């Protein structure tokens, strides 16, 4: 279950260099959550919003970036010290999540909906706002990043400490 994890400093330097490499190679900021809009447009032909403007052409870098992420995750898991395995274990979250598997699934789906809706309403996710936007010192991104952290901090504290 557990994947190999590098020291936070090393991983941070690697991700920082990754952001710069992305700028240098592609010429545009890296982002994750916009690609999900492309997927929605491909799945639902009738939702007009995902067929207009920046979503008009769906086979773009945002979509293919998203395709690459699981391949990278799989490579990381396969090269970890522990063997690859399927599991529904949520670690520390087992203490606070509902006991049955169905209730856990519904909880996670609801959380996922908040992630998806919130990311579109805010314009980007942790990668686009906190990481890349923070690196460009873009004021709206810094504000969004601060609210991401504050709201997740309050929610986690409420979940585990009350």
């Amino acid at each position: 279950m557990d994947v190999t994890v590098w020291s936070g400093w090393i991983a941070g330097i690697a991700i920082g260099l990754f952001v710069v490499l992305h700028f240098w190679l592609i010429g545009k900021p890296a982002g994750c959550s916009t690609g999900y809009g492309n997927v929605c447009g491909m799945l639902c032909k009738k939702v007009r919003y995902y067929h207009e403007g920046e979503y008009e052409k769906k086979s773009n870098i945002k979509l293919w970036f998203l395709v690459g992420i699981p391949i990278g995750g799989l490579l990381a898991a396969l090269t970890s010290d522990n063997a690859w395995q399927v599991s529904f274990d949520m670690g520390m979250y087992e203490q606070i999540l509902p006991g049955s598997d169905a209730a856990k699934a519904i909880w996670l789906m609801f959380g996922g909906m908040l992630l998806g809706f919130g990311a579109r309403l805010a314009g980007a996710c942790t990668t686009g706002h906190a990481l890349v936007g923070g690196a460009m010192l873009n004021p709206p991104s810094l504000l969004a990043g601060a609210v991401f952290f504050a709201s997740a901090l309050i929610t986690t504290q409420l979940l585990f400490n009350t």
Partner: protein
Amino acid sequence: MPKSHQLPPIKSASLTLMNFVHAYRINILGVIMGIMFGFLMSRAGATTFDFHAKMFLFEDMQLMKVIGTAVVIAMLGVFMLKKFHVSAIATGNEVDFVKKPYQQGLIAGAFLFGVGWAMTAACPGTIPAMVAEGKIGAVFSLIGLLLGTLAYGILQSFIANNGSYKDAFKQ
């Protein structure tokens, strides 16, 4: 077809491949960058549920170190790229540091996102990597993520058509 237009099979195949790689170079680079990103997220611990909870409970600052270091390094890199007017390899144009604008609902959206982050211990960039690592929980987060994104699109289509769904869902 005249014989003179035919090339040896190996040369023909290699030309086809080169043509394909050139035509789709942006998308191919996108996949490669995605692979790197997924791998680094996993190695950074961002695909492990516990690190998210521990960061917000102030028990283990692994992810805080990661994002803090990454932002500082990326900031220095962006500064250098700007200073030397570096052009992008894939397009040949100068790097476009397009900034996400302030949009209405940013704070509300960021608040909802944070609640979702604490509930799923994941963010949109790490969920696909978690799924590939065999974490079943992330599959449900992914379904929710797509539904949430879809809900926003439906809402926007609805608003753009003045609350009428007659034309909102036409192709």
